[in-house]
């Protein structure tokens, strides 16, 4: 059985590693956009309510079950669950703790590599002289793989490989010699970068360096409360979702980190400390960086438009341009700080995702740390290649949706039910409060047993049946599913006219007029334009040299009109193939859990 002798070097190292695991891109890019779209300052009410009723209970559950598993020398989610109620099938629920981490890491490492490359581009002055649309286009080109600023082919893949090798190398150094050192250096540095950028943002003055308004107007915009929004279930679901994703719960990372603490160590204070440190980074720093800077230079209307595509668009397509307004030297420092901050947030999270998989290999197959880390890296590379090569075909989104969203909610619900109802809250409460350095309020017994599972059920149902336009009151015209709802996804609600795997014709997805046909970086594009609420919108379609165009500039096209002909592979093919791949991985992990159980069952200490 396991000869896994990993341990944390210090309690501070553990707290910083756990906080680093929770602090991710979402703290800086997702939270402020969610707040803007869901009631501004009023959003903080459902957000904090969900933190108290959902976030803290899940942290208590995961920390205490992790320590319980560690006591029995198991350090991966399936067998931590098995140690709680051995002989039952709960270990198979732990599949999520391996599956999610493998799949999320595959695309998370890719995003991490964007931040690394953007640090390099910022320092090298790559964005100097580019206007806003050119900076936005730079990001699109960077993802297209054919683009290079250094002369090296496949530049984005090279940056990804650097990131992946760095992750594997740090993981191979273990908890004390790798992850803990990164966290002790990275988390304080991230806070320093965050404070620097927040001060720079707030200090923006209208009229200086081309600013159209004060940076403080951004804070005003973000924090002005719209209390009416609290009546909308969408806002509460958004708050619950944000709390859920910001704390890295439902993935097995927290359990795995906690499984390496001593059986007589506190978990209650540790959980509170790491949780609130994450909240500090999100609410104090995350809310004070991208919104003040972008509103300062672009104004409120433009930022509202940009945030419709989420925080990532704002972060990578817009921020490098905004930093240019501060002059050559300061833009390099600000760009390096901003993308450095995101890189640290990313790598501390991706390392935590590697640990449960490493723990599984080390415990169940007696593999060395180095062998486990390299195997983890190879699997992540294999899974990442489809997302990188077919990024614009929807593969990335599929990974994020099924492994990074749905799987987390399902696993959190399963572990909460198991902890409260099968392991039993009496024993569970003992685990939470044993050797605690703080008094945990008794009300949490009730919250953990009843409130948290109910909230998780609501989140799951909300995701399953999410209606079009997030209008939860529209029962009269029949329930129209949102294309991002679980059922909507399964039914391919987001797929338009090109709804077959292969075709000889490609159809227009929107009405409009062909306004340009062009070649950019060896890729061919047709662009159509149309008006939406008096605003001109553009739709771009890509085609290849072997396709034959059936439209010309100036042609009016309607939905379903043929734009070009040839041998065409539609996005639906890539979407379904990525789902099949995810299903295979999920099944493969289940089989490995079963084999590990059979192999080591008699040697286990519980």
């Amino acid at each position, binding site marked *: 059985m396991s000869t896994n002798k990993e*341990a*944390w*070097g*210090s*309690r*501070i190292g*553990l*707290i910083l590693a756990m906080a680093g695991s929770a602090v991710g891109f979402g703290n800086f890019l997702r939270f402020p956009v969610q707040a803007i779209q869901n009631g*501004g*300052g009023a959003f*903080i009410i459902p957000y*904090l309510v969900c933190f108290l009723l959902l976030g803290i209970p899940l942290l208590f559950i995961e920390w205490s079950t992790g320590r319980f598993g560690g006591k029995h020398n198991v350090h991966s989610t399936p067998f931590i669950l098995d140690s709680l109620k051995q002989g039952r099938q709960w270990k198979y629920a732990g599949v999520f703790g391996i599956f999610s981490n493998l799949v999320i890491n595959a695309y998370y490492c890719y995003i991490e590599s964007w931040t690394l490359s953007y640090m390099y581009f910022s320092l090298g002055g790559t964005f100097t002289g580019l206007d806003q649309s050119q900076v936005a286009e730079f990001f699109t080109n960077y993802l297209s793989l054919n683009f290079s600023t250094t002369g090296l082919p496949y530049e984005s893949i090279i940056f990804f490989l650097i990131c992946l090798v760095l992750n594997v190398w740090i993981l191979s150094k273990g908890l004390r010699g790798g992850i803990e050192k990164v966290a002790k250096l990275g988390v304080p540095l991230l806070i320093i970068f965050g404070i620097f950028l927040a001060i720079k943002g707030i200090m923006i003055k209208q009229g200086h360096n081309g600013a159209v308004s004060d940076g*403080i*107007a951004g*804070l*005003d915009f973000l*924090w*002005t*409360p719209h209390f009416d929004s609290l009546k909308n279930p969408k806002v509460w679901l958004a708050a619950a979702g944000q709390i859920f994703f910001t704390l890295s719960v439902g993935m097995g990372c927290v359990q795995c980190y906690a499984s390496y*603490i*001593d059986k007589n*160590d*506190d978990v209650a*204070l*540790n959980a*509170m*400390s790491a949780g*609130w*440190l994450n*909240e*500090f980074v999100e*609410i*104090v720093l995350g*809310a004070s960086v991208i919104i003040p800077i972008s509103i300062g230079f672009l104004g409120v209307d433009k930022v509202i438009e940009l945030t419709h595509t989420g925080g990532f668009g704002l972060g990578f397509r817009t921020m490098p341009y905004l930093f240019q307004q501060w002059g050559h030297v300061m833009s390099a420092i600000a760009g390096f700080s901003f993308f450095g901050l995101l890189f640290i947030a990313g790598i501390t999270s991706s390392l935590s995702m590697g640990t449960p998989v490493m723990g599984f290999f080390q415990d169940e197959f007696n593999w060395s740390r180095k062998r486990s880390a390299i195997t983890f890296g190879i699997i992540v590379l294999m899974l990442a290649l489809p997302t990188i090569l077919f990024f614009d075909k929807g593969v990335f989104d599929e990974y994020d949706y099924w492994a990074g969203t749905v799987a987390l909610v399902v696993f959190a619900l399963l572990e909460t039910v198991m902890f409260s109802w099968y392991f039993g809250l009496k024993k569970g409460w003992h685990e939470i409060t044993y050797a605690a*350095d*703080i008094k945990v309020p008794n009300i949490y017994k009730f919250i953990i047993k009843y409130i948290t599972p109910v909230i998780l059920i609501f989140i799951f149902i909300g995701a399953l049946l999410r209606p079009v336009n997030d209008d939860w009151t529209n029962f009269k015209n029949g329930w129209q599913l949102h294309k991002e709802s679980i059922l909507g996804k399964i039914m391919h609600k987001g797929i338009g006219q090109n709804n077959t795997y292969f075709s000889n014709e490609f159809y227009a997805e929107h009405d409009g007029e062909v306004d340009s046909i062009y070649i950019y970086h060896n890729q061919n594009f047709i662009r159509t334009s149309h008006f939406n609420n008096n605003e001109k919108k553009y739709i771009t379609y890509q085609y290849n040299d072997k396709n034959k165009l059936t439209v010309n500039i100036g042609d009016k096209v309607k939905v379903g009109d043929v734009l070009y002909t040839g041998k065409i592979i539609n996005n639906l093919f890539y979407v379904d193939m990525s789902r099949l791949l995810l299903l295979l991985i999920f099944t493969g992990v289940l089989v490995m859990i079963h084999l590990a159980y059979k192999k080591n069952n008699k040697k286990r200490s519980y």
Partner: protein
Amino acid sequence: MNTTALIIMLTVQITVAALAFYFFYRVLHANSKNKKDNDNDLSL
């Protein structure tokens, strides 16, 4: 800046920062106490 927005922002941010530092201080304090109890103990 709008007064309501300013009050909400300051209240929330100061409270969250205070709680984060308070719990972190408690960890530091508990950690140093443990160290005094057993100087050679490297566990948490």
